[in-house]
């Protein structure tokens, strides 16, 4: 397991301690006080910048100086990163800078005043001005993903907490929530049943379908990575869905033994990048996101095949599944596999394109 947990413990205080060894069931992580005897490790999910209290105060001119410095750097990048690894260009960095200011500063009316000299005013911020310099340096020099810098990602209508060790949810994956909304709106049985999101990461899919789809039953989210489990539980709590979504730690179907053959629906965006492509990824992804969330084995399909096998066993008759893949080739290989090897249990396979026209998803049903 290649987890880099050391980088996760940063000094932001957060009032909960998750004892993730003690709980395979993290349904109510914030209220658990009766603990078992196993040695607890504490994982403190970071509080995203925009949720921290505005306890720092800076002179407006100092803030403006930082802004002009940061903007200058962003502009100087030009297309350097685009050329080296198809990374962000100046216009994207400038937009990120604007979002960083939105998250860091309490009073947004300030931004219309950036053009003026206003020496007396003070700016209330959620982070000190020195740290703001450090954060932007890390963004540019280390290519630290913007979402880790601010500790959140906007995904669908959600704002999800993310941090090193947890995959930043991608816009493509937003579509899986639409598929689920669509299928449960036509099928009461699926709507009432138990759903699972395997390899939940930040909890994006579980929270997306648990909140939006009108699913009346439960959603179980699993991940093998304890950092993901802690962050997903934090996000579930933030959206007050802890009664509906249960986060469990473990490998794929292992934490679901109690509901074998009973699942109404199964969604997953498993690691699917072929191992040899990991080293060539854009720096924000390859250097900073956890390999355990990206690397899908030699051809990237190790986990996708495993998920198909599991779907055949764990879904109930009529159950639904949707998986994200690397593209057309994986979609085809997956459908071929299910047609040849799993056709006695799975059927009605469909390949669906993402918004960029890339064949991205395989969906289907249990007989």
């Amino acid at each position: 397991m290649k987890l880099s947990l050391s980088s996760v413990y940063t000094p932001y205080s957060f009032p909960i301690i998750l004892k993730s060894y003690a709980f395979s069931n993290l349904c109510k992580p914030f209220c658990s006080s009766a603990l078992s005897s196993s040695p607890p490790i504490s994982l403190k999910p970071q509080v995203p910048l925009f949720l921290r209290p505005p306890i720092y105060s800076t002179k407006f001119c100092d803030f403006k100086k930082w802004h002009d410095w940061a903007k200058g750097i962003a502009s100087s990048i030009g297309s350097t990163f685009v050329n080296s690894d198809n990374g962000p260009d100046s216009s994207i960095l400038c937009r990120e800078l604007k979002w960083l200011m939105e998250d860091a500063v309490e009073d947004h009316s300030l931004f219309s005043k950036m053009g003026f000299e206003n020496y007396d005013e003070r700016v209330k911020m959620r982070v000190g001005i020195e740290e703001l310099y450090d954060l932007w340096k890390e963004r540019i020099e280390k290519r630290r993903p913007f979402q880790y810098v601010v500790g959140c990602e906007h995904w669908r209508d959600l704002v999800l907490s993310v941090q090193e060790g947890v995959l930043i949810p991608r816009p493509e994956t937003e579509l899986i929530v639409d598929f689920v909304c669509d299928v449960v709106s036509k099928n009461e049985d699926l709507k009432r049943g138990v759903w699972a999101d395997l390899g939940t990461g930040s909890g994006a899919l579980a929270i997306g379908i648990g909140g939006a789809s009108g699913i009346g039953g439960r959603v179980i989210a699993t991940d093998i990575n304890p950092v993901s489990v802690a962050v997903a539980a934090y996000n579930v709590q933030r959206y007050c869905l802890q009664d509906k979504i249960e986060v469990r730690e473990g490998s794929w179907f292992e934490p679901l033994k109690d509901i074998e053959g009973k699942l109404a629906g199964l969604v997953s965006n498993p690691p699917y990048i072929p191992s040899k492509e990991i080293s060539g990824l854009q720096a924000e992804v390859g250097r900073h996101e956890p390999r355990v969330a990206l690397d899908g084995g030699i051809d990237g399909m190790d986990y996708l095949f495993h998920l198909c096998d599991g779907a055949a066993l764990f879904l109930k008759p009529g159950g639904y599944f949707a998986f994200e893949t690397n593209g057309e080739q994986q979609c085809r290989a997956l459908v071929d596999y299910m047609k040849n090897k799993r056709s006695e249990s799975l059927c009605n396979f469909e390949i669906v394109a993402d918004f960029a026209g890339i064949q991205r998803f395989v969906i289907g049903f249990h007989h």
Partner: protein
Amino acid sequence: MAHKLIWKWKPTFMLPLTFNSQSKHVIRFHHHPFSSLKIHHPINYTTTAAAAANTSNNGDCVKAKEFLELTDEELVRQCEMDFLKSSGAGGQHRNKRESAVRLKHLPTGIIAQASEDRSQHMNRDSAVKRLRALIALKVRKTVDLDAYSPPRELLQILPPKSTVRGSEIGPQIGPKNQKFALGMQALLDLIFAVEGSISEAAKYIGLSTGALSRLILSDDSLRKEVNDLRASKGMKPLK
């Protein structure tokens, strides 16, 4: 590598809309370096596109109002959707904060775009809202002044002192309300029919000229549209 998917639904009817291609309206919030990809909505578009075509194709006349009566989903299915993003594999490979959405409404050619939000989903919502407002502003339908009686959606945006507005119409609807677009569209139809004369239009809806001016000035886009018309007729702008 540009993936180009072309919309399957071809309009099979003529559009008697007073809409010319020059007034195509593009809202841009930032410039951005990547080529745009022509993409349609991937979900079930064939069936619903046909349904949308049916609602619009009643005989020979497409009423602009009908576009606004479609649900967001139906409206989006009449659109070509461009996602402005770079080429490449996407998905887990990428970290790029590029979530701009551009909708082109094929029956009218109106383009609405949104990129100010941080999630693609939210940008899509904003683009649809903008598209609705633009349809209301840009798509005109002819009004028979001799037989004119203000439609309900117009009455709803009028102030209570209008003499043609009965109490059964309910409270006045303001620019923040979604239904304002429909009323605004009907008001513009009338103002275009009287060639930009506010005093003429006011008579048809039981308001004083001053009261109608105030209503027009309460919404920036409505004011701009009226003033553009007045400018084209050599009239002074409302202020």
